[in-house]
């Protein structure tokens, strides 16, 4: 067999390994229900859940509990199916957290009660709201 072929096979092999691990390690978007089922099936993989903070009629965020040492907190996230879930995040509250329009939590269920987020991504309202223009000028 020619050396060139060996090298070629080597490259293809590495490429396949890369593709397989990329698919294997890729996370997925889930709802809290499917995530809980995954946990019950023993699948501990970190997944993405998209949702909104629980708010009351006045738009005030409900269920935000900051730990005494201010280095972590829990909050209630409502996913797109409407399931409410308490989520723990081991970081101080991000400053614009309560203003966020939607929140993506990346993590998994610790037990059946609590979802632990390893990372939070927030989508915040656009910087340029109509009201802002007015406020800036009046």
């Amino acid at each position, binding site marked *: 067999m*020619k*050396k*060139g072929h060996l*090298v070629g096979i080597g*490259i293809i092999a*590495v*490429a396949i390994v*890369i*593709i397989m*691990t*990329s698919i294997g*390690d*890729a*996370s*997925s*978007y*889930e709802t809290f229900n499917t995530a809980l089922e995954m946990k019950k099936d023993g699948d501990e*993989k*970190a*997944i*993405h859940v*998209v949702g909104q903070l629980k708010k009351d009629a006045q738009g005030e965020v409900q269920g935000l509990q900051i*730990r*005494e*040492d*201010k*280095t*972590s907190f829990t909050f209630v996230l409502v996913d797109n199916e409407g399931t409410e879930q308490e989520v*723990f995040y*081991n*970081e*101080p*509250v*991000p*400053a*614009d*957290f309560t*203003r966020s329009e939607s929140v*993506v939590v*990346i*993590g998994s269920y*610790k*037990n059946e009660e*609590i979802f*632990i987020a*390893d*990372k939070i*991504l927030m989508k*915040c*309202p*656009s*910087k*340029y709201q*109509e009201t*802002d*223009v*007015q406020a*800036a*000028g*009046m």
Partner: protein
Amino acid sequence: MINTFIGNLGHMMTIVAFVSALVAAFAYYQYYKANELEKKSWQRFSRIAFYIHGVSSVLIAFSLFEIIYNHRFEYFYAYSHSSKALPVHYMISSFWEGQEGAFILWIFWNVILGVILIHTNKLWEAPVMIVFALVQAFLVSMIMGVVIGDLKIGSSPFILLRDATPAPIFEINPDFVPEDGTGLNPLLQNIWMVIHPPTLFLGYASTLVPFAFLIGGLALKRYSEWIRPALPWAIFSAMILGMGILMGAYWAYVTLNFGGYWNWDPVENAVYVPWLILVAAVHTMITFKKSSTALKTSIVLVILSFILVLYATFLVRSGVLGDASVHSFTDLGLSGQLLIYMLFFTAVALFFTIRAWKHIPTSEREASVYSREFWIFIGATTLGLMGFQVILPTSIPAFNALIESFGGISNMAPPADQIEFYTKFQLWFGIALALLTAVGQFFWWQKMDKKALKDALLTPYIVSVVASALIIVAAKVYDWKYMIIVVAGTFTVVANAVILSRLLKKSTFKLAGGSLAHIGLGMMLIGIMFSSGYSETISINMSGLTYSNSWEDELNKEHVLLWINKPTQMKDYTVIYRGRQKKVVGVPEYVPAKILESTGNVNEAIALEDYKDFFKKGDVVDIVLEENDYFKIDYFQNEVLKFSLAPMSQFNQGMGGLISSPDSKIYLNKDLYTYVAAMNDYEDPEWKDDEFYEASPGEQFHIADFVTYFDGAEVLQEVEGYVLQEGDVAVRANLRVLDYDVEKKLTPTFIIRNNQVGKLPVVDNELGIKVTLDNIVPEENKFVFKVNRYQKDYVVMKAIVKPYINLLWLGSIITLMGFTVAIYRRFDEFKKMRDKGME
């Protein structure tokens, strides 16, 4: 009054630039096809067209900067990206904060590169400039802002605010101009953000040059001659792009608070991959020049690097990344245009390559294992696979969008722990590269067989094994993967240093580029291993709290809560948070915020106390960006103050909250990196219920938890900020409040006028208390104080030690030097050939 002239000028120039780019492309095509007689006049005409394009592009940039510089907030761009408080050098950052500005920057660099190419090339001018002019037409179209029916082409930076937002105010007064803009993202208010984007965009722009030479070469059927002029530019591009990436990494390290210089964020990945491919292309091009192999590989790699830059632009700017990235840009509706741009040049490249493929000379001879070609090829392949491993998961959001556009549903998400995911591959690729560069350099400079290789490698091998053993023992590297990195990195450094010293002895410095760059690479590898692999959070698990949930006890709390003035032990240090500070113009140190009071004007404050020799009480001082608070954190060791750090935070309404930048103590062998993750908001405190305390002069008592001395009261003749009338009585109580080692004087005042009582309370934001002298009972010689509490000032902070990070920065600089030497050498070669009339 609204100034519409400058916006119209800018918009006009955009259209001129677009049309002239098309004209230049057409003219250069005629020049390319014309016979010898007509060539001269077509050349003249084409150049004029390109120069018109160049001038109008510069005027576009000028118009936009004029709008920002003169605070023309009637324009959306100025309104949303700048404010009056910005110093001039940050106005430059405002210029490219928006995507339109970034495109203008790109266009500008292409113009500069185009002009240089016109004047340094003879034969290549026409074909190269056709590609250039077409690229420019695409880029200018991104900022055209022309609407034809339902079709919107480009997003113009010159639109007025009233056209951009439907705010009700404009119905009342169409000529309304906001007082101030919403400001520049504070994260971009950093000197690296002034120079990082232009560097990166010069890197982006310059990938076009080798690509243009390649397309020119394929069109002219000079399948291999394009390499010579393209090579110095390819190296230049790789250097600038690399420098841009490193500056971005450094900026992230000093400004962002994700705790490092690299986060494997899609935006970072999107530039990292084209750079890898470009470096691979440079290597195969050099090989081709030396031994006429790897031409096809070079062609593929050059095309890939250019297309990947366009793909990166598409990913980052089309909004397709959406939730996946922390810093993706807002969608300007350009996705379609960006896609067409990318697909157009992909099609052009494919067309010419396929047409030329069977004419491209290849070397039939099989590369021997002892040949440099073989090792360079393996190296280029490694770089390619490295890029492939990164771009594949980065494209998941694009893949989802593609499936959804065909009506499917895909719930695939990027890997949850990106750092771990990418590191586990890139680490091994990095090691492979390090070893390859070491061995490859020996093959490069001399003929090798089994024995010669053994002889050449033996000494560097022994030296590096001994050196790495020392490093491993001294720095306690006990992880086997990291040990391999140390060995590989040291081996690269030693082997390339051997080559370098030989080259310098035998010939000139001109040839040293390669070995220099590789020495830098080895150092970077070791630096990255130490600073990331052994980065240690020292602000860990310090609250002393136990949690009700057992699972929560298992988690590491990586932040520390620091109450003001309270000493807290953190690993080898005792840290004390000492309050907020501001930067004042003309004062070389930070000034405590509590002695400054805003005058209401932007960036201006009145001094409440003298401050050293810098200003006196009552002076009006200028503040550098008043929103910025610098938190004074004192670090003690053995009760001795070692140093203070001042991590910055800004409470930015427009940006939606707290924005923090770290501050680091830099040692030769490590950085101590700290940032503020949360802070107390005492702008509008919710005071708790009244508490009353009675005390006689000279008595000691407790206010809240603070030991307080009531030193006595005095009758005042005048009260600051208050006009005393005949018959008024003003009494001031002098309180000393102790908080750890800090003593504060609080002086609530009590005024009696015509049996009416006026109380002037004092608020101490740091202690979080408001003290009012509520009543005086002369019969009992008692004073009654009313106290309201809020909470003491605090910060939540994270502190990380990053060992040997300087090795990474030093390695980067050496690598860039190596690139520079190589550019010089390759451009010199091209110039000699050109001046001989060969090209």
